């Protein structure tokens, strides 16, 4: 006997399945691997006629959908009025949908960054596919040239290299893991300013860039003594005032920035030897967790007191070294304190008086001085930061060397 109810239920289920298949297939097709072109790096440059030039670095995929383990990038560029339009044009050119969910690096040219990049950053953050952890770089050269020359020499996959290189900040302090999420957060914040990784290139494989630096730690991208297969470099930091590029920090200044932010695990500094002012001692420093930052207002101006503690080990070893002698260790500690105090003070005054940019979020330490948000907004921290006075106190405890303690 035919049960009408059963037949009706089956018909309803069938109709629903057909409806859902047809309605969700459009989204599936758009996000399908076969129809997507995965971008690993996006360059945003300024072109002629006040337009943007977008450079897309794609990951070539095999027909089975697996990435090809080649390091040669697939680069395409487009001139457009906005990032969204550029992506749209590129979709049309590729015959695939540009997918930014694996975009690890967003590079802005120095020229564009100087004019302000808030519109571009807002558009990118509005894009669901862009990860907040995507790194943001300001390139001292053309972004296309930077991407072309970012072929890793020790990695087989480009995305792997993009994933790894910002992590060097943890043990060198020469670069920084600056992300678009942090950039956007700082752009809207009323007590801090954004920052980005400073990128650049050397002139050719066998030639280092023109470095005027007398000290190894004062190098930065495009001004470093590096030669190698890969021409791109990421040393230093690009400092923004609101959305405009305000200046650059070199390697030692980036170390200061990261130390105050507590984002560096260890770093190496070369301090003047206490016995011989012409020679230097390399110290491997580890910031302690006892950093203390205090901000108060004196006559309406910020008075910022920083107390930073480090422990260090002596890296460089010479003939007749006596690193078990407590007096020698103390004198090295004093020399290290003096060196770091001058570096930190110089860095902080540079950000406040030259760049007028609080990239270290020191304003957040001032928040507790106010009872209401409107009081803080009326004070206008970002305008007053240039009048700040800094009092830096460094306390370094130097241990002996590693395997050798005296020679």
């Amino acid at each position, binding site marked *: 006997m035919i049960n009408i109810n059963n037949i009706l239920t089956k018909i309803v289920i069938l109709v629903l399945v057909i409806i859902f298949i047809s309605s969700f297939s459009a989204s599936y097709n758009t996000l399908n691997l076969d129809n997507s072109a995965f971008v690993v790096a996006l360059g945003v440059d300024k072109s002629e006629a006040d337009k943007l030039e977008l450079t897309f670095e794609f990951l070539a995929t095999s027909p089975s959908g697996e990435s090809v383990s080649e390091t040669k990038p697939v680069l395409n560029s487009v001139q457009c009025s906005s990032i969204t339009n550029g992506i749209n044009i590129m979709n049309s050119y590729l015959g695939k949908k540009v997918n930014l969910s694996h975009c690890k690096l967003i590079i802005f040219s120095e020229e564009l960054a100087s004019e302000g990049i808030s519109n571009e950053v807002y558009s990118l953050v509005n894009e669901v596919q862009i990860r907040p952890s995507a790194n943001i770089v300001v390139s001292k050269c053309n972004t296309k040239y930077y991407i072309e020359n970012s072929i890793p020499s020790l990695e087989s996959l480009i995305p792997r290299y993009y994933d790894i290189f910002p992590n060097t900040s943890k043990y060198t302090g020469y670069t920084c893991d600056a992300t678009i999420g942090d950039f956007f*957060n700082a752009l809207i914040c009323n007590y801090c300013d954004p920052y980005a990784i400073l990128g650049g290139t050397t002139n050719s494989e066998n030639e280092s860039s023109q470095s005027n630096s007398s000290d190894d730690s004062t190098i930065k991208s495009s001004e470093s003594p590096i030669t190698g297969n890969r021409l791109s470099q990421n040393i230093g930091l690009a400092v923004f005032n609101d959305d405009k590029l305000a200046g650059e920090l070199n390697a030692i200044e980036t170390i200061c920035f990261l130390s105050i932010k507590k984002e560096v695990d260890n770093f190496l500094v070369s301090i003047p030897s206490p016995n011989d002012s012409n020679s230097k001692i390399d110290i491997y420093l580890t910031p302690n967790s006892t950093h203390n930052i205090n901000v108060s207002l004196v006559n309406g101006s910020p008075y910022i007191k920083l107390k930073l503690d480090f422990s260090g080990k002596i890296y460089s070893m010479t003939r007749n070294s006596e690193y078990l002698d407590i007096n020698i260790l103390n004198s090295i500690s004093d020399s290290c304190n003096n060196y770091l105090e001058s570096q930190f003070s110089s860095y902080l005054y540079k950000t406040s008086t030259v760049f007028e940019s609080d990239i270290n979020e020191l304003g957040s330490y001032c928040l507790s001085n106010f009872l209401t948000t409107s009081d803080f907004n009326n004070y206008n921290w970002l305008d007053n930061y240039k009048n700040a006075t800094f009092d830096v106190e460094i306390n370094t405890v130097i241990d002996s060397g590693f395997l050798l303690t005296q020679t």
Partner: protein
Amino acid sequence: MTKQKISTVSAVMLTLSIVVSYITSSLPRTFINETKSATLLNIIYITMIVLFIILLFCKLLKKFPGLDLLDISKFLGGNTLRNIVGTLFIAYFIISSSIMLRNFCEGLVVVYYPLTNYIFIILMFIISIALTNRLGFQSTINTASIVFPLVLISAILLFCGNLDNFSFRKIYPVLGDGAYNTFVLGLKNIGAFGGICYLYFLPPMLKEPEKLKKIAIISVISTGFFILLCVGTLLFMFSFFTTTDEIMPLFSAARHIEFGTFFQRFESVFLLIWIISFCCYLSISCKFATHIFNKMLNLSDMRPILNIFIILIFAISLLPKNYAVSNFVETHIYRYLRIAVGFILGMTILILANFKKRKVGDKH
């Protein structure tokens, strides 16, 4: 409503499942937008006020053991008042579920289904609650009891996973937009404890009605803790929620969680848990609306009515022209509706019924 009674733990999970739906939509954003850095202070303050209200509620309910708000309304004003109160609560449950569903689905469209019409996504939820209702209310309660701990774990993971991105100094300035905004205007946030509404109808369904006080207190404290955890995550992480709106704030926070280069993109797991919890919320609201309707009209079979309410939720969720309208309704109208129906109407009836009871008692 159901032959099986609800245990104490299940009752707590049921009320907590309600707040999950608020948290996953715009509630944290509303909190931070309105009270700025004093958000956590405001949450603690309103939790204490709701705790006081709930203690008053339990005291008032002592004279009506095992009765729900409909029975009490009938005692106070006869069938007329009972029907008015019942209709208001049905409208509240159905409209709130519809608006929340629409906003949640708009978020899903943006995140995962860019080319799918939101109607189909709403339809998926509607089908899921229709199927759940066929299985009986106990299955929904059991699901909520399993899913809420997962939601809590996800909230804790969200908090712990983002610890590196936190700046605890964002709780300053302590008073946010000022004492008046935090403690007087901030009272509007009391609507976040909308799960309390469901407690009015719980007594007859409980296995141990004498434990209602315990259920109510645990529910309020847990809701407060849960809101504190989720809103705290956003407050400590972002500086932009005071000026910029994001469609699903907690989803934004989930996108930041990364454990090295291997464990990334946790937001998909979070969203799956939130979707299941959202289905529980819809099912619970629908069941309560049907329960009230059946009690008002003394109907024995609730299944046909359930389907009508499900279709009603679907239809109302399609009414807002776009996300801007549904978001406006949620943030500017629905929150007052929660306060008016959940706190003012319910408590007024209880207070008046207590007066009447005392008067009747005195006469006798």
